[in-house]
């Protein structure tokens, strides 16, 4: 920001306005943004949970069963359901961002953003279907 100016008749005092404490309630996009920022803590939890899961698996069947029992605790389940909601929210944000960040040319022609977005969502569906098959029926 520019330096402090001395008041003169031809160089008046500037009015510096500070953002309101509740600026994030003023527009839906601001609320979405601040929700994304705050929910990062749940994404961090998601990573920690995944690491705990991998560790339990690596320590043998008994430790894995202990982990499963612990995961069935209501508090952990509620936390994981909330986390899943925010992970999906962040994933959708990422897929909306992808066509803006990725510019792909095929034979000299730029691919439309909708195609990049659709391919991301398509890959997501395929990966989810594969995991469901692996976990439930594979």
């Amino acid at each position, binding site marked *: *920001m*520019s330096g402090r100016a001395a*008041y003169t*008749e031809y160089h*008046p*005092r*500037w*009015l*510096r*306005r500070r*953002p309101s404490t509740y*600026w*994030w309630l*003023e*527009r839906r*996009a*601001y609320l*979405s*943004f601040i929700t*994304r*920022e705050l929910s990062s803590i749940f994404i961090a939890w998601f990573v920690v949970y995944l690491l705990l899961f991998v560790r339990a698996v690596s320590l043998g069947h008994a430790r894995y069963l202990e982990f499963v029992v612990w995961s069935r605790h209501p508090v952990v389940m509620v936390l994981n359901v909330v986390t899943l909601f925010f992970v999906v929210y962040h994933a959708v*944000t990422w897929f909306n*961002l992808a066509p*803006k*960040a*990725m*510019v792909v040319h095929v034979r*000299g022609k*730029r691919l439309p953003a909708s195609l990049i977005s659709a391919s991301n969502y398509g890959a997501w569906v395929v990966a989810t279907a594969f995991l469901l098959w692996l976990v439930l029926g594979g």
Partner: protein
Amino acid sequence: MADRITIQVARYRPEEEGVQTLQEYEVPCPKDWVVLDGLNYIKDRLDGSLSFRWSCRMGVCGSCGMNVNGEPKLTCETFLSEYAGGPVRIEPLRNFPVIRDLVVEIGDFMRKLVRVKPWIVRDHEKPVSEGEYLQTPDQLDEFKQFSMCINCMLCYSACPIYGLEPAFIGPAAIALAQRYNLDSRDEGSHERMDVLSEHDGIWGCTFVGECTQVCPKHVDPAGAIQRYKLTAALEGLKSFVLPRSAR
């Protein structure tokens, strides 16, 4: 439709008072009047002391940006009839210091703009005798969208990051840097990267996206920033993985 509308104008007169106040004026509201026409009516007929910037009246010069009912808008493109029934509230662009009434201080933006070198940079200029730097339509399309920026600063007014972290270089400056980075005639992208990749450059953006929503020229600054993040990340990876000669 009502034939008159109340305009509430944010006034700031540093020689009289240290705070912003709202002053109401009643102006005609014909369907072909834009907000700027209403302000000019006030200036010419009701109160000559009202200060605001304007020039071209056709969405080209970018000087008449103000907050209209809380939304950053070019007042020459915003019809008063959209707010029929009123009142319509006109305030100076948010996130900038106010000099007087609706006039904001834009020095911060101008200094940031210069830092990204928004002009064609050449390592070696070829002599005029060798002719122009030719460009194909496809090469033009690569940067044309970003070249539509008119420096109206509506994106800065809509960006909460710029409001909270004034050191952030901001949407328009990054979009204009990309305009030149993507120009086939330009060779200055490595010089701009030093500015764009710093903490207050592209990484300050957290993809709120409002800069793109309010842009009157459909420049998509948010897109320019996300695209440059990918470029910077790939360049960073290259410098880490590849030997210097292969970068």
